[in-house]
């Protein structure tokens, strides 16, 4: 269990960056609002993991506490976000974000 030192923290950094960028990429290319929300979840998770990693490597529990709070916010965000998606679907019969372009100049 206590052989963490064999994995350098740089590994976590690279892994989390890649995961985060996948999330970003997803947000950019997808038109489905639902999948965009999922991509955002991916990004949040990569951040969480990085926080936990630093917490473990610096022996400071505060990082893990922050992960809890981020989870709290993420859960609330998903609940509201999905409710909004449902509402959008109900009004436009689509969850394509390109349809939602009424708010412009």
């Amino acid at each position, binding site marked *: 269990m206590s052989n963490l030192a064999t994995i350098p923290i740089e590994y976590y950094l690279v892994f989390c960056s890649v995961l985060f960028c996948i999330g*970003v990429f997803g*947000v*950019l290319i997808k*038109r489905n609002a639902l999948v965009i929300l999922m991509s955002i979840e991916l990004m949040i998770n990569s951040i969480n993991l990085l926080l936990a990693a630093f917490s473990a490597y610096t022996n400071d529990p505060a990082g893990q506490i922050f992960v809890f709070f981020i989870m709290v916010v993420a859960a609330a965000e998903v609940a509201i976000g999905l409710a909004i998606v449902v509402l959008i679907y109900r009004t436009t019969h689509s969850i394509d*974000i*390109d349809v*939602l*372009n*009424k*708010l*412009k*100049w």
Partner: protein
Amino acid sequence: MKLILILIPLLPLLGFLFLGLGFKSIPKKVTSIVGPGTILASFILSIITFIHLTQQAGTQSSLFPHSDVYTLFSWISIGSLDISFSFLIDPLSVLMLLVVTGVGFLIHVYSVGYMKDDPGYNRFFAYMNLFVFFMLLLVMGANYPIMFIGWEGVGLCSYLLIGFWFKNHEYNNAANKAFIMNRIGDLGFLLGMFLLFTTFQSLNYQDIFSQAKGMTSGNGTLVAITLLLFIGAVGKSAQIPLYTWLPDAMAGPTPVSALIHAATMVTAGVYMIARSNILYVLSPATMEIIGITAITTALFAASIAIFQNDIKKILAYSTISQLGYMFAALSIGAFTGAMFHLTTHAFFKALLFLAAGSVIHAIGGGQDIRNMGGLRKKLPKTYWTFLIATLAIAGIPPFSGFFSKDEILSKAFEFNHVTWFALAVGAFMTAFYMFRLFYLTFFRAFRGTEEEKHHLHESPAVMTTPLIVLSVLAAIGGVLNIPVLFGGENWLSGFLAPVFADAMAVKVQPAALSHATEWLLMATTLAGCLVTIFWAWRRYVKQENGLLPDEAKRSLLVQLISKKYYIDELYDFVFVKPSLWCSRYLHQVVELRFIDRIVNGVGQVVIWTGNTVRYVQTGNVGFYMFIMILGIILILFFNILI
């Protein structure tokens, strides 16, 4: 006691709020009660304060507790600057309280009759109450900032009341003139306060005066402070070179001229210097400047008054001249004399103005004394009161002006014979122009139109009663300070002594005059006055063509004086014209060509940019995300670079 002190200024303020907010919905009867009523209440409370103060004097071992400061609340507290809203009650402020509320009340009562048919009746009383409030604040404040509030406030009320009939453009100009002239003085006052604070780290009278006591005479900082404060006094009390606003201020209703521009507000400068007596005593250079200014003003204004034809303008110049007397008294360290003259002057000058108002009222608006005459029979009460006031101002015993003027003159003789001579000449001139005014107004045949002659009537009782009360005061006001010479006890000097005690200790006292000299001086001035009065009588009553028309040939000097030395024209040429020209240039070239174009240009650039850039707002969420990611990339990128 504290409650009483709060109520003294608060009542007029409440009166102002009531009348000012109620405006037109309040019936005239209510206004007639509330307006003078609040002042009467303040007057009664002032008397209570006065009695309290004198009783305290008896019980305590020291003459007066000079440090009767009542703090209401802490007003400003920043760093070492700590200004509390507090009132100082000492003999000096109580004297002023009595004068302001007492004379103010009589003038309020008079106004009930004088302003009866004016559409702005409520507004008038609201302003008057506000004025009394600020004046009380000015005299009661226990530090310079409070005095400054009052100082600015009375200036504001003066502006409002000079321009009371605001439909007349001339009157508005006069109001502006008064305001701007006062502002020049106020700047001096303000700078003086700043300097006071940097020197003494406080603005309280007590702190400053107790510290100043230990300073050496002629200290440079003190001289600078006193000079700056004196500039403030010059503006407010209409001394050379800032006096020209006062004659123009006669545009306001006559009670205003009586209350503000004769009895109270213009004496604020005198009060301020008397209050700061210790500072002034310690800076002889300033005292000399004050003396020169004051004597010049006294003679200058008196000489102008001789050739004026407007009844109120003559009185205005007379006020300037009398203020010059008070400043002259201050400059020779005769603070008591100045305050005594201030008090008696408040009585007889208010009376003169009110009586003049009664005359104007009787004629129906005309103010030119060349169109008056023979009013003695028609307006008996006005005639008698005016006579008393004129005798008082001319310095005829036993009227009040005699005592106060004599005190100043004898003090001046102790100080310097030239000063005495100049002031005595001023007194003769005063006697002359006052009796010229008096004879032209009340003697010989009426010179106005038939219509005006028909209109002539004595004023109603509500106007004549204050006249009579004031004439009693003007007649017997001298008892306040009857000199030892007449078996009096110099009551006022004793009363005010604690206030000026420190200053008197510092000042070098010249040897007191022997009684014989005093008698001689008195006789000289009295004889001079009587001669000039007799001369005026011969010229304006006996001689058929005593009154020269404007077009008549005059000597160059007379021409010069009758045009008021062309001072207004000079100021117009030196200050007003260049600044107007400068403003016009700035407006047409700098404002229109540069600033306007820059401002409009900025607006147009913003509009153009907005029109162009708004298409970025596509409404497409994906696009926004792109931009956001781009922004993050850029931030991180620059982070690496830097």
